[in-house]
C-alpha cells in the first residue's frame, strides 16, 4: 500500500467522486433491501409466523393456492396418521371486509386477512392482551396492523356478505400481515362463514373444509404416499410464500432493481479504474523498470480498490441505515442485518470484480516504455 495510499491522498478529488457514486449506490442498496424486507413482511409475515414446516394444498390448485385450494377433513386426518408427520391440522385463509359496528371507530371499514385455525392448537395465536380463541364464539384475535386502524379488544366488527358479527377478543401486538393486510385469527367455523360469505348455519360440506393442511413434518416423512392418498401437494412453508398474492412479483422486481444496481456499480468502478490505470501507464512502466514484480503492483492496486470500496460502502451503508430508520413505520420497510450485509458485501465484491478486470491491464505494461522520450 506504499504507493496506493499516497495516490489516494494525492488524487483524492477523483477518488472522492468515484467513492461518492459507490456510497450513493450503497445508500440505495440499503433502502431497497429495507423496502424488499418490508414488502416481504407485509406480504407473508403471517405465513412465516405459522408454527409449521409444510402446507399441503389441493393438487388441482397450481397457482395462488391460498385462494384456490380446498382440502377436506379426511385429508388432514389422513395426513396426521402418516409416518413422520408430527402434526397435521386444518388451516383456513381468506380475505374479508368488515365494518366496525361497536367501538371507537364505529362505521370504519377494515380489511382482514382471516386465518382460520383450531382454537387451542399450536396454530392458534397467543394474544398479548385479551383472550385467545374459543370454539363457537365468533371471536377474533387481531394483530397490530388492525389495531393501528383504531380497532381494540372488546369492539365488534360485522363482516360484509355473511353479516357475521365478530367480537374482538384478543390482540397480538406484532405486525403480522398477509397480502399487505393485517391478519385476524378466527376459529375454523367463523372462518368458513367469512370464506363462503354465508350467514346462519353452514352447509354440511362446508363444515369439513379448509384451505390447506398445515403440517409439521419430521425428516424422512413419507410425503409421497400421503400426497397420493389425499390428492394434495405438500409445499415447504417458504415455497408457499410464492402462492400469496403479489409476493413473487414484488420480490422479483426488487431483485431485478438490485441486480441492475450492483451491475451499474461494478461497471462504474470498472470504468473508473480502467481510466485510472491507463493514466498511470507511465508510472507502472517506471515501477516495472525499477524492478517491481507485476504482483507487487497488482497487490498495491487491488489494496487501493478494496480500500476505496470498503470505505465508500461503509459510509453509504451508515447513511442508508440512518435514512432507513426514519422510514420505518411510514412505509413497508424493515431493516434486516443479513440482507444489508449481503447488499454491502455484493457491492464490494462485484465492485472488486469490475476493478480486477480494469487493473489486469497492469500486467501488459512494458517496462521498456520508461526509457526514451516516449513517456
Amino acid at each position: 500500500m506504499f504507493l496506493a495510499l499516497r495516490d489516494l491522498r494525492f488524487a483524492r478529488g477523483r477518488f472522492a467522486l468515484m467513492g461518492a457514486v459507490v456510497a450513493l449506490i450503497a445508500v440505495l442498496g440499503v433502502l431497497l433491501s429495507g423496502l424488499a424486507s418490508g414488502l416481504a413482511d407485509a406480504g407473508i409475515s403471517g405465513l412465516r409466523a405459522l408454527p409449521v414446516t409444510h402446507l399441503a394444498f389441493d393438487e388441482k390448485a397450481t397457482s395462488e393456492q391460498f385462494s384456490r385450494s380446498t382440502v377436506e377433513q379426511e385429508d388432514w386426518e389422513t395426513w396426521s396418521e402418516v409416518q413422520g408427520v408430527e402434526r397435521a391440522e386444518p388451516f383456513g385463509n381468506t380475505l374479508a371486509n368488515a365494518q366496525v359496528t361497536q367501538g371507537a371507530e364505529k362505521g370504519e371499514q377494515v380489511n382482514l386477512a382471516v386465518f382460520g385455525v383450531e382454537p387451542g392448537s399450536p396454530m392458534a395465536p397467543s394474544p398479548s392482551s385479551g383472550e385467545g380463541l374459543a370454539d363457537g364464539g365468533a371471536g377474533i384475535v387481531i394483530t397490530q396492523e388492525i389495531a393501528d386502524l383504531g380497532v381494540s379488544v372488546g369492539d365488534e366488527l360485522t363482516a360484509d356478505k355473511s353479516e357475521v358479527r365478530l367480537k374482538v377478543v384478543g390482540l397480538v401486538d406484532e405486525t403480522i400481515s398477509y397480502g399487505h393486510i393485517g391478519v385476524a385469527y378466527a376459529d375454523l367455523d367463523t372462518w368458513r362463514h367469512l370464506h363462503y360469505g354465508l350467514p346462519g348455519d353452514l352447509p354440511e360440506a362446508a363444515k369439513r373444509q379448509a384451505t390447506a393442511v398445515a403440517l409439521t413434518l419430521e425428516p424422512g416423512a413419507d410425503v409421497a404416499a400421503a400426497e397420493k392418498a389425499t390428492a394434495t401437494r405438500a409445499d415447504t412453508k417458504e415455497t408457499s410464500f410464492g402462492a400469496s398474492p403479489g409476493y413473487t412479483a414484488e420480490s422479483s422486481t426488487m431483485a431485478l432493481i438490485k441486480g441492475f444496481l450492483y451491475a451499474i456499480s461494478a461497471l462504474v468502478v470498472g470504468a473508473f479504474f480502467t481510466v485510472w490505470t491507463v493514466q498511470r501507464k507511465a508510472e507502472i512502466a517506471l515501477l516495472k523498470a525499477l524492478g517491481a514484480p507485476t504482483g507487487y503492483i497488482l497487490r498495491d492496486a487491488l489494496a487501493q480498490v478494496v480500500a476505496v470500496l470498503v470505505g465508500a460502502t461503509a459510509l453509504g451503508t451508515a447513511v442508508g441505515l440512518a435514512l432507513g430508520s426514519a422510514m420505518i413505520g411510514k412505509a413497508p420497510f424493515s431493516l434486516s442485518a443479513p440482507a444489508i450485509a449481503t447488499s454491502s458485501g455484493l457491492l464490494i465484491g462485484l465492485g472488486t470484480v469490475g476493478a480486477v478486470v480494469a487493473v489486469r491491464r497492469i500486467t501488459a505494461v512494458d517496462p521498456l516504455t520508461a526509457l526514451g522520450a516516449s513517456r
Partner: protein
Amino acid sequence: MTTTSTDHRADQDAAGSGGLRLLDVTLTLGDGDTAVTALDHVDLSVAPGEFVAVVGPSGSGKSSLLAVAGGLQRPTAGTVHVAGAELTALRDKERTATRRRHVGFVFQQSNLLASLTVREQLLLPLHIDGRLDNAARARAGELIEAVGLAHRAGSRPHQLSGGERQRAGLARALMTSPAVLLVDEPTSALDRVRSAEAVRLIAEQTREHRTATVMVTHDTAIMDAADRVHEMVDGRLS
C-alpha cells in the same frame, strides 16, 4: 542471490569482474523486411567507479543499449553481465530481481511518481524489495543531502524544477547501492549550466558509490566529465 548487494559487489571487485560487461551483443527488433538492427555486435566493459558516456544521434541504438544493459530487454545474441551475474542467462523473474538490486536507472526527465515526496521516491525501491528499514531511511537522508535536495525532501515532483527532479532521480537510482548505474539523456530538460552541474554530480556519485556508470546522450557538450566516450552509429559502438 543470498548475499547482500554490497557484499556481493565487494566479492566481484576482488575478482575483478564486477561492473557491467556486454559481450558481442546484438539486438534485432521486428522481423522480416521490417527488421532493424538496434545493436550490432556491441562489446562494452565498464569497471566499478568508471563513468562511460555513449553519444550518438537519436535512433542510433543508445536507448536499446541501456535497455539491454539493464535487463529490460533480452538481446537477440550475446551476453550481458551485471555485478558478476549473467543477466542473459536468467529467467524473467530473476532478471527483474537483479535489476531491482543491482541496476540503478536514471530516466530521461527523471520519471518520478507524482504522488510521492522526494524522500518517498527514494524509499520506494527498497519498499519494492521488502527492505524498507531505518537504515534505508538514513541512507535516503544522506543521498538527499548529497544531491543537494535537503530543503526539498518533502516536496512532490510538481513542486520541483527540472534540475531538482533530475537530482531526485539520481538519488533514487543510488538507493539500492547498485553495481551498475544507467543514465538516459540526463540533460534533455535542462539548460547548459544545469546540464553541466547534473553531469558533474553523476560523475561525482559514480566515484563515491563505485558504480559502473553508462550515460547515453546526444549532447556532446557534457562529455568532458566522463572517463571514456564511445560513439554509437547505427547500432555500432566505437
